[in-house]
């Protein structure tokens, strides 16, 4: 059966065609104006799951980078503090060498004794260092000062690590305990104990005792340096983690961009095509719609 063509059919067809062309244009226009080709789940049901994954990974990555920054601040502060501890312990060592070797007039020994006492107090104060209002050398007991002026030689610290996380699984303990620096209570080379004994020895000018303490202090200095290099090693490790997090961020961002972002060149090209098609559909419709037998009946 030959199809009768009626104006109603042509009208319907025309409206549908023009409309679907417009919808296509609107869609591409939307892609261009939002800069995103993925505006709702139905735009790309598979893409949406990737998009959400990337978004949440970027979000947590951002947090992990912040964690790394905080950790580095903490470690830098610890490094400075341990550096100072090292410096003044070195000074104590020099004084001790001077006191233990050769003959010193009593005034000189007294002066050394006074300086040793100052050093002791300074060490207590460094041992009680606070960062962000937290005692950094007392393990997890960050609200309690680890060392007391009088009891320091016999005081231990909490040794639990404070864990910062820089990835899903692994964490890094960023604190260093006071015991690692100053020695455990009753250790021969407990820094506070050494200095206390040194003071006594200086009072009685006991060269033998001083000589012994010299050895202890030497041991301690080595350990302080070990603690300091541990801080350095941790800082390096976090720097590496930071770099990796930075790289990861770039990778994820670029993958996210592939899923979410509009390819401008391509979309503009397609939009131009849509425009031509739309114009053609308008033009032909206008032409066909005008015509009728009426125009020729005179």
């Amino acid at each position, binding site marked *: 059966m030959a199809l009768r*063509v009626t*104006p109603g059919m042509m009208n319907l067809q025309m409206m549908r065609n023009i409309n679907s062309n417009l919808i296509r244009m609107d869609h591409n226009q939307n892609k261009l104006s939002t800069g995103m080709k993925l505006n709702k*789940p139905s735009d790309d049901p598979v893409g949406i*799951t990737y998009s*959400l994954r990337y978004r949440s990974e970027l979000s947590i990555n951002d947090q992990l980078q912040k964690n790394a920054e905080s950790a580095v601040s903490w470690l830098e502060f610890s490094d400075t503090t341990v550096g100072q501890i090292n410096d003044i312990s070195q000074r104590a060592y020099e004084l001790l060498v001077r006191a233990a070797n050769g003959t010193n007039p009593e005034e000189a020994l007294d002066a050394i004794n006074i300086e040793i006492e100052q050093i002791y107090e300074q060490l207590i104060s460094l041992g009680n260092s606070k960062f962000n209002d937290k005692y950094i050398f007392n393990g*997890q*007991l960050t609200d309690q000062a680890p060392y007391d002026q009088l009891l320091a030689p016999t005081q231990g610290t909490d040794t*639990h690590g404070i864990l*910062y996380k820089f990835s899903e699984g692994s964490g890094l303990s960023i604190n260093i305990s006071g015991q690692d620096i100053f020695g455990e209570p009753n250790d021969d080379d407990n820094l506070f104990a050494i200095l206390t004994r040194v003071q006594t020895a200086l009072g009685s000018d006991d060269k033998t005792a001083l000589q012994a303490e010299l050895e202890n202090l030497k041991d301690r200095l080595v350990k302080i340096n070990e603690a300091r290099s541990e801080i350095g090693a941790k800082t390096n490790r976090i720097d590496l983690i930071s770099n990796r997090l930075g790289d990861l961020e770039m990778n994820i961002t670029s993958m996210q961009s592939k899923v979410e972002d509009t390819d401008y060149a391509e979309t503009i090209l397609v939009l131009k095509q849509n425009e031509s098609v739309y114009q053609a559909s308008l033009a032909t419709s206008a032409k066909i719609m005008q015509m009728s037998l009426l125009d020729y009946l005179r």
Partner: protein
Amino acid sequence: MTSTFHGIETAKRSLFTQMAGMNTTGHNIANASTPGYSRQIVGTAATRPIEVPTLHKSTAPGQLGTGVEVTYIKRVRDQFLDEQYWNANRSLGDWEIQAGTLAKLEAIFNEPSDAGLTTVINNFWKSWSEFSKDPENVTSRKIVRENALALVDAFNETSKKITDMQTDLTRSLSVNADHVNTLAEQIAQLNYEINRIEGLGDNANDLKDQRDLIIDELSKMGNVIVEREESSYYRVLFGGVELVQGNNANPVTTAGLEAAYTGNGLNSGELFGIIKSRDSIVQDYLDQLNEMANTIANGDVEVTIPAGSVLPEGTVFNGITYTGANRTLTSDLTVTVKGINGLHQLGYIFTSPAQRAGEFFSSKGGPLTAASFSLSAAIEQDPNRIASSLRVIPGTVATGDQVVKGNNTLALLMSGLRDKMFTFNPISSNNGITKGTFDDYYRGMMGQLGVQSREALRQQENNQLLVDQVDNRRQSVSGVSLDEEMANLIKLQHAYGAASRLMTTMDQNLDRVINSMGIVGR
């Protein structure tokens, strides 16, 4: 002898018939753009001829024509195409509604964006990680609280928007049911009139067009079966239930429609789409949202509690009661806890002596759903009730435990839950995730939403094409073509002119006979 006026009668019959033709053409042109109108054609036939009259019975072959008459005026319409149209239209109806519903759901979830649930959930986990760096500080505690509140709000809001949608759909169902009833009344009324007119042997063309147009409309709302009865009545079944019988309409009710939906009587069309959207699609996303809220708060999840942690007195894991000295873990302990609440209750808050923490999330009443999901009142009022530490220095009964404030184990475990597998209750959805991270579940939901929405759009487009195609075929048969009408008009005009000329000729003949004959010699 033939009647003197035979020719005049023949001419008159022709004039009337051509005029009827022109009037019908006029009617067609007038209704060229009337929805549902089918073109009408005039059927003509020669009137009964008579013997060629002679003095005797004629032996000459042939009969004398007596002119023309209109035998019928009927509409040109194909019932088969109507049936096809109604069948295609109902599918279009339900897919349109479903696509609309899913598009609204997409707008509610608003993904991907910086304002969707993903962002809020991510911020929540981040805040615990941030908190882990500074557990002693009330500020970071407040950040956790604010982000938890944002999460709670997001769940509450989303749930409300979804239930609002269900309410809208219910309202829409009732409005549409009313509309069906109005249409049913009209069909019953038209049945009556068409029956009356056709009973007299006429064609109720325009009324039948109207009735079919109403069925067109009705066919989009549900599955319609039309039975054409002898009496020219339409018996209409809607959603498997008799809607119109003769002059009577049986009104549908929302309850009746819901029953028909459940019993599979109502299986397509807008009303089907509305009920399906409300009870199945929207409900499914609400169920999943509820499941998410309940699972993050109370769902089973495995965590590893590191050595050195101190469990609260009397905690039972894997049949072992932790009390006294064995509260302090000497090695890592992997256990299943009940969501964030279960984990939080292992922690301690900074009172002296240390107190075991309470639950983190709670319900505003009733079972925990996305709507009743809330932050525990104690924490909302006092962020110090948020636990971060899993370690105490055990004391005597008198002194109690002293909390180790710098311990951030709980905060770390909390932020780590982001990557932990929760156990989700299986629900009648297509999501199908029963074990996965919280993010996995939500992503699964969004992926499902995308697939469903895209499928609905595709179905809508396909069905629209189908409907258009059938409509095209129908228009091809029934539509008014102006060119055709004009051509007919010209044809009829000429016929009319010629008939008039016949009349004039006859007139002249008679004039000759009456006025000019018998006047010889006058």
